[in-house]
């Protein structure tokens, strides 16, 4: 889907026929079937709160928790809170887990997929801000940024420098200005669902997927959102490893596989 015209919601491949027909009156395509993908790894302490908040704020959305082989009872709690749960038999990391969610959204014919972290960092009340540009067809993908004036999120100095460097690298690769490249609070329309179900970066998914989407012609828009520092668990990008992380992400962005446009993992989805 590199140079062909953008897909409309009627063109989404992989819609389960049986599922569509089993639900009378719901087969008409409209841009409102929303799937909230919540990747979670050992988030038993926060998953219940995240899901109940989501059900409050977006009651019409389908909530999918992708449990990345957690050691705790994240999956059980998510299920009990009313979410559909995909449990990965082995740990894939955030990229693989999120892609499983996009695959689910694609196969079940969702129009919009929203990505919300399972650690309660992202305020579901901000989802409307993510959805607006997609609903008004101004963008195919939106990313919530905590640095655009909303909320009072504070990051350590080292982290801020790293984030600025990442933003510079991404601007260089995409031509677009992003302030919060590592934000996992995002939404995509049908084109984004199809793209990410087919190919999704595994090493530095948040940053790399921005470049991937831009290179595939998706309009990516950053929107200001409020985020709270995580209440539970640990960032996957923290501590002594951050320097190593920066080195790797720089290499990935500069010479990474992104220069090739399509690395098909799931061929049937294309």
């Amino acid at each position, binding site marked *: 889907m590199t140079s062909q015209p953008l897909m409309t919601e009627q063109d989404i491949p992989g819609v389960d026929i049986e599922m569509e027909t089993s639900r009378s009156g719901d087969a008409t395509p409209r841009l409102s079937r929303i799937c909230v993908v919540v990747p979670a790894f050992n988030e038993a302490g926060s998953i219940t709160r995240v899901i109940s908040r989501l059900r409050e704020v977006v*009651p019409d959305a389908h909530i999918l928790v992708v449990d990345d082989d957690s050691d705790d009872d994240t999956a059980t709690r998510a299920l009990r809170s009313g979410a559909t749960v*995909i449990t990965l038999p082995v740990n894939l990391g955030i990229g693989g887990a999120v892609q499983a969610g996009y695959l689910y959204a694609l196969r079940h014919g969702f129009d919009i997929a929203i990505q919300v972290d399972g650690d309660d960092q992202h305020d579901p009340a901000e989802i409307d801000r993510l959805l607006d540009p997609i609903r008004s067809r101004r963008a195919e993908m939106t990313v919530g940024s905590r640095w655009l004036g909303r909320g009072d999120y504070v990051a350590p100095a080292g982290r801020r420098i790293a984030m600025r460097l990442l933003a510079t690298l991404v601007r260089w690769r995409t031509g677009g200005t992003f302030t919060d490249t590592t934000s996992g609070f995002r939404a995509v329309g049908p084109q984004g669902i199809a793209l990410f179900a087919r190919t999704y970066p595994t090493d530095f998914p948040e940053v790399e997927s921005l470049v991937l989407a831009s290179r595939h012609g998706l309009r990516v828009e950053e929107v200001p959102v409020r985020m709270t520092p995580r209440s539970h668990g640990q960032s996957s990008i923290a501590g002594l490893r951050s320097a190593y992380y920066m080195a790797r992400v720089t290499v990935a962005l500069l010479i990474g596989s992104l220069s090739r446009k399509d690395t098909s993992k799931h061929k049937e989805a294309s």
Partner: protein
Amino acid sequence: MRAIVLAMVLSVGFLVVSVVAMRRQQLREQAALLWLSVSFVMVLVSATLPIHLLDRVSHLVGIAYAPDLVLLLAVLFLMVLVFHLSLSLARLSAKQTALVQEIGLMTAMTPTPVAIGTDDTTEAPEQLRGGPESTAPPG
């Protein structure tokens, strides 16, 4: 003479190990062929120690000290091999990711069983709102 015996024992031993692994189908065709070739080269070098084949080849390519040629070839061979394995590993892990995701999708769990087409005229159950149910049974 003792050097030849030692070299021959080692190379033939390696050849035997490769053949046994092949017969037990622990090696794939491609790898088996590779290790067989390596064994034969080792046997060849060992067997030709008395006629100084290695020294002659070294001089031919302009290397004064024969063991240097062996080291050079060994390092090159190992580097290519490790790079090849690195590529295979990446390929395997991509395949594994796809498989794990498929398994996850196939075993997706929904909160409670939902009967479709019941005479429930009130608001749709939570699981029906906004999204389809999984094809997999819950639990």
